[in-house]
C-alpha cells in the first residue's frame, strides 16, 4: 500500500474507533508492519499540526487515538453542553415513555412499537443519564430501563408508580405488535447486533 493510501486508511480506522487502538491491530488490518504504521502516524500528526486541522493523534506507547485539536476545545465544549442541556425532542419523550412503561426492553422491541429506528435517540438518552442498559446473557442483547436518577427527578421510586402503569404496561395493542414481529426481532438481533458501542465513557 502506498503512503497516501495507508494514511487514508489509518484516518478512517482511528475515526471510527471509539477507543484507543493498538498499533499492531491497525498494522494487521492494513496488512503492513507496525513500524510503517508508526511512521505514517507521525507524518499524519505532523500534518495535522502544521495545517492546523481539527484533529490530533494521541499516542501512548502502543495505543493511538484520534481526538480533536485542543485549540478548538472552546467550540467543542459549547457543542457538548448544548447537546446535553437540550430539551427532549418529541421522539426522545416517546422512547422514554416506552422504556418507562415497558422496560426493561430491547432496542428491537422499542423500534417495533414505534416503527422507527431508535439507536440515536436511545444513545442520547443514555448520555443524558435518563436511560440505562444492562447486558443479558441471551440473544436479546441489551435491555433498557429508566435510570434511578431520572426516577428521582420524576418524583417516583419505581416505574410502577407512573400514572396508570398497571393498565398501560399491559396494553393489548403493544402486546400484539410485539408478538407479531417476534421472529423478525430475534433474527435482527442475532444477525446485526447492537450498533451502540460497548461503553459510554
Amino acid at each position, binding site marked *: 500500500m502506498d503512503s497516501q493510501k495507508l494514511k487514508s486508511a489509518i484516518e478512517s480506522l482511528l475515526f471510527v474507533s471509539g477507543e484507543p487502538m493498538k498499533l499492531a491491530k491497525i498494522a494487521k488490518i492494513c496488512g503492513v508492519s507496525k513500524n510503517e504504521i508508526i511512521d505514517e502516524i507521525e507524518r499524519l500528526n505532523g500534518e495535522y499540526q502544521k495545517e492546523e486541522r481539527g484533529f490530533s493523534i494521541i499516542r501512548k506507547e502502543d495505543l493511538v487515538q484520534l481526538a480533536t485539536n485542543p485549540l478548538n476545545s472552546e467550540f467543542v465544549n459549547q457543542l457538548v453542553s448544548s447537546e446535553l442541556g437540550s430539551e427532549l425532542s418529541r421522539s426522545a*419523550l416517546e422512547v422514554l415513555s416506552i422504556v*418507562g412503561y415497558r422496560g426493561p426492553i430491547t432496542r428491537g422491541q422499542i423500534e417495533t412499537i414505534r416503527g422507527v429506528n431508535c439507536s440515536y435517540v436511545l444513545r442520547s438518552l443514555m448520555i443524558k443519564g435518563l436511560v440505562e442498559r444492562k447486558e443479558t446473557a441471551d440473544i436479546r442483547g441489551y435491555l433498557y430501563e429508566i435510570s434511578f436518577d431520572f426516577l428521582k427527578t420524576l418524583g417516583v421510586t419505581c416505574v410502577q*408508580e407512573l400514572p396508570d402503569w398497571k393498565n*398501560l404496561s399491559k396494553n393489548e*395493542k403493544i402486546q400484539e405488535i410485539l408478538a407479531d414481529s417476534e421472529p423478525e426481532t430475534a433474527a435482527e438481533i442475532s444477525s446485526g447486533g447492537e450498533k451502540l458501542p460497548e461503553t459510554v465513557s
Partner: protein
Amino acid sequence: MFSVQLEKFEGPLDLLLRLIEEQKLDITRLNLAKVADDYLEYIRANEGISLENLAEFVNIASRIILIKSQSILPTLEITAEEEKEIVDLEQQLKEYQKFKNAAEKIGEMRKKGDFSFSRDYLLGVAAAYSAPKNVNIFDLKKAFLKVVSEIVLPEKIPEESVREIVTLEEKIEELKKSLTQRVETSFQALSSSAKDKVEIIVAFLAMLEMVKQRLIDVEQNSLFEDIKILKAETSHV
C-alpha cells in the same frame, strides 16, 4: 408461453412492466393491448397475488380491458375520463420503469460495499446526568398514549383492502355493462357502414376476440338472423 405465471408480482405495474419487457416492447397503448391477455390470465390464475394487493391488480385490469377492447374495435367510444386513465397508466408505467431501473443500480451500488462509516453520537463524551426541564410523569403517560395510538396492527391491511375490492368489482361490472352496449353499437355501426364483406368479417373477428376474452357472449338464433351481443355470463375478472 407464459413464463411469468408462477412468479409473484408485487403490484400491477410490476407485472405489466415485466410482460412488456419480456417481449422487448416499448410502453405504448398498442403494446399494452398485446399483453392484455397475459395480464388478465395472471389475475385469473390469481395464486401469486397477495390479498392486500388484489385491489390494485383489479383496478388496473379495468383499464387494460378498455385498452384491449379499443384496439380490437377502434370505433369503440371511450369517455374523456377513460381516455385520461389510459394515458395516465402509460405515463405511470414509464415512470415506474425508471425507478425500477434506478432501484437496480442502487442495489448494485450497495453490493459493491463501499460504505462510509460515521462515529456514534458524542463518542468519548462522559455521560452526565442532565435532567430535562419541564417533564413530569404525566408527560410520560401522554407520550405513551400517543405511541399506542399510532400503532397500526398489520391485520388491518387485508381487511380494508377486501372492502375496497368489493367496490372495485362493482366498478368493473359497470364497465363491462357499458362496454357491451358500446360494442353492440359499434358493431352495428361498423357493419352497416362497411363498404364490403371484408370489413364485416374484420368486425366479426373482432367480436369473436372479445368473446374469447369473455367480455361478451354472442347469440344468434338462426343462421342469417341478427347477432345479439350479450354480457358474458361468466365473469372471471
